[in-house]
C-alpha cells in the first residue's frame, strides 16, 4: 500500500507497511471541517463585507460584518486547535449572534428578505452541526471533583523516607557544610 509519508523517510529508516487504526472520531473530522469553514467565511466577511450586506439588503452594516468576520476566524482557529471544544462552543454562540443580526434585517421594506430567510436557514443548519460537534468533542479530562486514586504509599524509597533524610544529614555533616540549624529543624515535617 502506498503511504505518502514514506517519501520523506531517511533512507534505511523504518517505513510504514500497513497503517493502524486512527483514534480520530467522526466528530473530530466534523470539528475540522467546521473550523476551516469558519475561517473561510470569516475571510469573506472581513474582506468583502459590502458583498454580504448587499446580498442581504442590509447596506450600512459593513463594520458589523467585518467584526463578525474576525470572530469567525478566531473561532475557526480555535476549532482547529487542541481546544477545539471551546472553539465549537464559541461557534454555537456566534451562530446565535448571526441569527439575531439576520432577524434584525427582516423588515417589511427589505427587498432581499428572501435571501435573509435563506441565510437564516443556513445558520440554523450550521448551528445544529456546531452543537453536535461541540457535544461530541467534550474534553475527557475528569472533573475536579471526580473520585481519584491516591498514591500515599508510593514514596519510591525502599528504606523509607527517614533513612533518606538521615543519610543526607550525615553527608552534609561529613562534607563540613553548614550544619542544619536548630531553627530550620522544625520545618522538617
Amino acid at each position, binding site marked *: 500500500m502506498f503511504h505518502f509519508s514514506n517519501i520523506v523517510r*531517511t533512507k534505511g*529508516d523504518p517505513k510504514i507497511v500497513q497503517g493502524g487504526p486512527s483514534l480520530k472520531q467522526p466528530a473530530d473530522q466534523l470539528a475540522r471541517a467546521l473550523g476551516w469553514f469558519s475561517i473561510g467565511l470569516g475571510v469573506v466577511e472581513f474582506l468583502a463585507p459590502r458583498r454580504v450586506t448587499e446580498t442581504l439588503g442590509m447596506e450600512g452594516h459593513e463594520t458589523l460584518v467585518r467584526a463578525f468576520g474576525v470572530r469567525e476566524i478566531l473561532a475557526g482557529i480555535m476549532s482547529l486547535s487542541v481546544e477545539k471544544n471551546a472553539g465549537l462552543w464559541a461557534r454555537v454562540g456566534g451562530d446565535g449572534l448571526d441569527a439575531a443580526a439576520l432577524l434584525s434585517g427582516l423588515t417589511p421594506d427589505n427587498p432581499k428578505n428572501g435571501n435573509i430567510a435563506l441565510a437564516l436557514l443556513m445558520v440554523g443548519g450550521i448551528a445544529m452541526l456546531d452543537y453536535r460537534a461541540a457535544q461530541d468533542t467534550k474534553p475527557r*479530562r475528569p472533573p475536579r471533583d471526580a473520585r*481519584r486514586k491516591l498514591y500515599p504509599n508510593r514514596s519510591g524509597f*525502599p528504606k523509607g523516607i527517614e533513612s533518606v533524610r538521615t543519610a543526607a544529614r550525615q553527608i*552534609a555533616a561529613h562534607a563540613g557544610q*553548614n550544619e*542544619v540549624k536548630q531553627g*530550620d529543624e522544625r520545618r*522538617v515535617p
Partner: protein
Amino acid sequence: MKALVWHGKEDIRCDTVTDPEIQDPRDAIIKVTSCAICGSDLHLFHNFIPGMLPGDIMGHETMGEVVEVGSGVDGKLQKGDRIVVPFTIICGECDQCKRGNFSVCETTNRKRHLADKVFGHTTAGLFGYTHLTGGYPGGQAEYLRVPYADATHIKVPAGIPDEQLLFLSDIFPTGWQAAVQCDIEPTDTVAIWGCGPVGQMAIRSALLLGANQVIAIDCLPERLSMAEAGGATTINFETESVLERLQELTDGKGPEKCIDCVGMESHVMASLPDTLLDRAKQMVMAESDRPHVLREMIYVCRPGGIISVAGVYSGLSDMLPMGAFMNKGLTMRTGQTHVNRWTDDLLRRIEDGEIDPSFVITHTVPLEQGPEMYQVFRDKRDSCVKVVLKP
C-alpha cells in the same frame, strides 16, 4: 514490526513498519522490552514543537536487548547485552561529550543545519523527537536502531526488573539534574512546579541531595498525594495561592531554589489571566510557549537563588520579568538532560535500594494500546501518572 507512529496533531497510530537496519558501523539494534510515554511526547502529540513529519516513530524512553551490532561498535556492546537507551544520542568524542555536556553533543544531529538555524547551534540528536534533533525513529516500537551505540547506551545488570531501570533513559536523570543544578545546601527550601513523572523524580532527588524542605506544586490530587509520599509539602494551585503558601512555608523569604518541571504547556486557567493570553497567542502563532511557571518562579524565588528549568520550552516566551530576574540576582540553569553524566551514580543507587523509580508507574499496557494511553495520560484520566508500554 509494530511501532507508534505520529500522523498529525492528536493522531498517533500503532502501525506496522519495516524493521530497522544497521545503517552505520557504529549502530546497534535492540529488541525493545519496555518503553514509556513522556510528558515531552505530549508536546509532540499536541504538535506544539514544530518539526514532526507524518510517519515519524515516537518514543525516547526505551530499553531492551541487543540483537545486532555494527562492525564499528568495537566490543563495547555484544549481542545479548541488556541496555537502557538514553534519550540523547551521543558520540562520546566531541568537545561537548568530553565535558559531559552530552545533550549538546556536536556530532549526532544528522539534520544539524535545521538546529543551527533555529537555535544558533546544533544540539544532540534525540530519539523520536522532531527533525530539529535529527528525526531519528523512536523507541515506542518492537525494535530500535541505536546510532553511535558504542557510546549511546547504559549497560544494566540482569536481576533487576525493567520497571526499576527504564527511567534511567530520561526522567530519573532529568529530575536528578534539575536538583543538582540547584546546588542544594542543607538549609535550602526547594520548590518544584509540576508533579508529573519528572517532578516526582525531582522531589526524590532534592531529598537525596539533602534539601531541608521540598515543596511541590500541582493541581492534580493523585499527583500531589504521590509527591507527599515522596516527602514533599504540597500546594494545590487551583485551590490555594502559590505565592502566599510559599511565603508562609519560608517565613516570608521565598524558596532558595526553584525547579520547573512543567514546561511550555502550563495549565490554562481563568484565574491566571497570563495563561489565557499565552494560549491565545500560541493559537495564532504569536508565541510558542506558555511560560507562566517561569514568571512565577522569578517572582517568588529568594534573591540570590537558583532557578532550574527541566520543563521543555520550544521557542519564544513573552513577558518574562527580566527586571526581577536581574535585580534579585537570580541564576537560571537549564537543559535537556546530560543523561550519561548521571547514570552510573543513579544505577548504583537503584542497585543499593536507595531509590526505586518504579513507584511512578501507574499503567502498564501492550504497545498496541499506546495510542489510547496518549489520550489517557494527556487527559489525566484514571489517575494516570506514568505509562509503560510492553511491545
